[in-house]
């Protein structure tokens, strides 16, 4: 051969991390749209659950905790959105892609491991984000929720919540073998969060000792930051404490993924 291929062809347009993740996210979005069960859970439940919180709130003495219907329901609604639209959907997506050998196939290409996870997570994360914004708008209109007093805290809470749910979903997928068990393995975190992270009952209304433990649960700092963003009565140290707890959970999730995440099914 007088000329080699490398000489004869033009320099290829190199992909970037962003272009690769976008291509993957686009495919994953198509898949999310075609998975009816996941779609109903992701879109419907987070919009319905807050209604039950609203009716439960009528039994509570909210004023004592410095809350009203809006500042109770909105953080709870955002919590449900993170659990149903992001966390639980992603556990299923990661596990099913692994079972289908998609993750293994992706790893043979130019995508780096973190890009595979992030790109696959992007549609669910965006769904969660849009849902939270819609919920905030709905709560302001329907529950007379005033504008947030410390919006930066609410934004921060939402962002760490999205990152945390992605990391914890990948960590949960590390311990989930099949698509069927992915229906069950997200349950512990979801139930514990609903009970203990102030989704139904604000921590302020719990006994002090119980509340102290509940503050350490993963979703609690997210709810705390979002609620604090609206009420504006979260001190700097309280905000920092919540942030540290959230980051600790994210790091724990990342550690678990690096240590235990499997890219192909057990044989």
């Amino acid at each position, binding site marked *: *051969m*007088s*000329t*080699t*291929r*490398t*000489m004869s*062809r033009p*320099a*290829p*347009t*190199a*992909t970037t991390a962003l*272009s*690769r993740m*976008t*291509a*993957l996210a*686009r*495919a994953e979005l*198509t*898949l999310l749209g*075609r*998975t009816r069960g996941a779609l109903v859970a992701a879109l419907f439940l987070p919009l319905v659950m807050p209604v039950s919180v609203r009716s439960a709130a009528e039994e509570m003495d909210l004023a004592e905790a410095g809350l009203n219907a809006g500042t109770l329901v909105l953080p709870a609604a955002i919590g449900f959105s993170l659990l149903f639209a992001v966390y639980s959907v992603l556990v299923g997506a990661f596990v099913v*892609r692994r079972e*289908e*050998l*998609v*993750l*293994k*196939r*992706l*790893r*043979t*290409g*130019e*995508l*780096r491991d973190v890009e595979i996870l992030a790109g696959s997570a992007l549609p669910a994360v965006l769904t969660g984000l849009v849902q939270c914004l819609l919920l905030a708008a709905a709560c302001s209109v329907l529950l007379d929720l005033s504008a947030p007093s410390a919006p930066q805290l609410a934004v921060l809470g939402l962002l760490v919540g999205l990152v945390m749910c992605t990391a914890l979903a990948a960590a949960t997928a590390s311990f989930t073998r099949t698509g069927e068990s992915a229906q069950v393995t997200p349950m512990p975190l979801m139930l514990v969060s609903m009970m203990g992270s102030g989704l139904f009952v604000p921590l302020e209304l719990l006994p002090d000792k119980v509340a102290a433990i509940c503050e350490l649960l993963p979703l609690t700092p997210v709810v705390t930051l979002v609620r604090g963003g609206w009420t504006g009565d979260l001190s700097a140290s309280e905000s920092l404490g919540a942030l540290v707890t959230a980051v600790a959970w994210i790091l724990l999730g990342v550690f678990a993924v690096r240590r235990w995440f499997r890219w192909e099914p057990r044989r």
Partner: protein
Amino acid sequence: MESNGHEHVIEVTDLRRVYGGGFEAVSGISFSVRRGEIFALLGTNGAGKTSTVELLEGLAAPAGGRVRVLGHDPYSERAAVRPRTGVMLQEGGFPSELTVAETARMWAGCVSGARPAAEVLALVGLESKAGIRVKQLSGGQRRRLDLALALLGDPEVLFLDEPSTGLDAEGRRDTWELVSALRDGGTTVLLTTHYLEEAEHLADRLAIMHEGRIAVTGTPAEVTATQPSRISFELPEGYFVGDLPPLGELGVTGHETDGRTVRLRTRELQRSATGLLTWAERAGVELRGLDVRSASLEEAFLGIARTVSAEQAGGMTTKEYAA
């Protein structure tokens, strides 16, 4: 570019792979593949072919030894290697709910310098299936989709893990033609197969793997030449092996008997066959089931499996003559 023609694109030295349970799937193998060459790893299931290829693809780090693909470590320097390689795994790995076109578009977005998706789908004859979901494809169509995606980035090095498994005869021929054409265009191809015909047809050089080791390597002709030719027939009624002319004098290097069937091994096929047939003619007997065949890759393949198992059994059931 003559010097580049002999460049080693893949170099493997003392490669070992050990799985979690302590099972050693690859036990110290070495080989190299030159640019523009088709190299086949041939072996039975469980010989360690896929375990080896996965190390070359950079999917896992070796337990020992060294791999270089295009001069780089495919595991630790993946960013340097991946844009220049194409991989076809043993099994698909596509979301079942995406269509063929969506799958190709997704993969194209992850490949540097990707060719138009429609072009590679046409190359493997899937252009009419673009709108079909992957789950509705037949096994053979999925293999061809996998091949198309491996070709998207116009790779310099192509890894094909059992590319024609699940294909019908025609699909297999098409794949062979495509792979040969790629080689002629300068692509280096490493493929695994358990089809001897495929290795014989495609490979410039091959290695036969058995239980994690390379038993023999070379061009198909070289590997075949390591094996003897064979003559088999049924002994006529009333005759015994001892009634045959002295086999050593006919150039026969060994024989086996199985009931009345006699199998001779020889490196001088014409001389041995002539001697045997002359004897039969003179004795006025008919040699039923007479089968005279030159050494083939199949003989080499089976010979290797047999030798290794015989060594493991600790005894030979066949008689060997001094050469």
